[in-house]
């Protein structure tokens, strides 16, 4: 039982960890080459998936880990306000979480809303605000941010 779980988990990690670590690194807004917070976040989420492996009952372990990652990040969002040099570091932790779930992971709006605990129209508004922040930041790198209201 234990050996089977270890093997299945290893195979899952081999296939999914690259994408999950990228998502985690986007969330913590660390540069890809130095992402200890993202690694810790992902290790914690994966550990939980391992502990629940025998009770997944057909649920996709990738979805479960992604959800756990999002919840862990949301719980400790106050830690991730500092600018660390990642792609999304001009956004607030909440904007990053929504952008990563919606655009990078392609999670449906309703499901994203359920994970974060916000109404779906708030999620849509925050997402489009974050998109315009990112685009204006790209057009004017280095200059103070022009926050566009949604």
């Amino acid at each position, binding site marked *: 039982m234990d050996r089977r779980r270890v093997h299945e988990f290893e195979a899952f990690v081999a296939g999914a960890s690259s994408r999950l670590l990228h998502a985690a690194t986007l969330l913590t807004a660390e540069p890809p080459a130095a992402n200890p917070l993202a*690694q810790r976040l*992902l290790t914690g989420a994966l550990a*939980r998936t391992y*502990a629940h492996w025998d009770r997944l009952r057909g649920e996709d372990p990738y979805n479960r880990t992604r959800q756990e990652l999002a919840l862990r990040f949301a719980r400790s969002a106050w830690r991730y306000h500092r600018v660390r040099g990642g792609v999304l570091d001009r956004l607030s932790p909440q904007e990053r979480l929504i952008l990563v779930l919606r655009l990078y992971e392609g999670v449906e709006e309703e499901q994203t809303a359920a994970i974060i605990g916000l109404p779906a129209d708030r999620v849509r508004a925050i997402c489009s605000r974050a*998109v315009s922040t990112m685009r204006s930041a790209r057009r004017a790198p280095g200059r103070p941010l022009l926050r566009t209201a949604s």
Partner: protein
Amino acid sequence: MNGPERKEDEVRRMMDAAHPVVPAGLGPRAAEQGARLLRRHRAVRRAWIGLLVVLVIACAVWATVTEPWAVPPSDTTPPLDW
């Protein structure tokens, strides 16, 4: 492709730029941490079951000793009125 979708695609490309390398120890570390979590969950469950068994036994012993369902002998005589 309409406006908002094009904008979202642009941001998607920005996010897809540089991918981090997964350190070799991440998977085994997660498995080890997960195994520890699993052991702890099991220990907690065993402790709850043990506590429940002890409570049931204690209740049974108390009931057989005190027999709370037995009617206590009354120490007042019924009134005699005729």
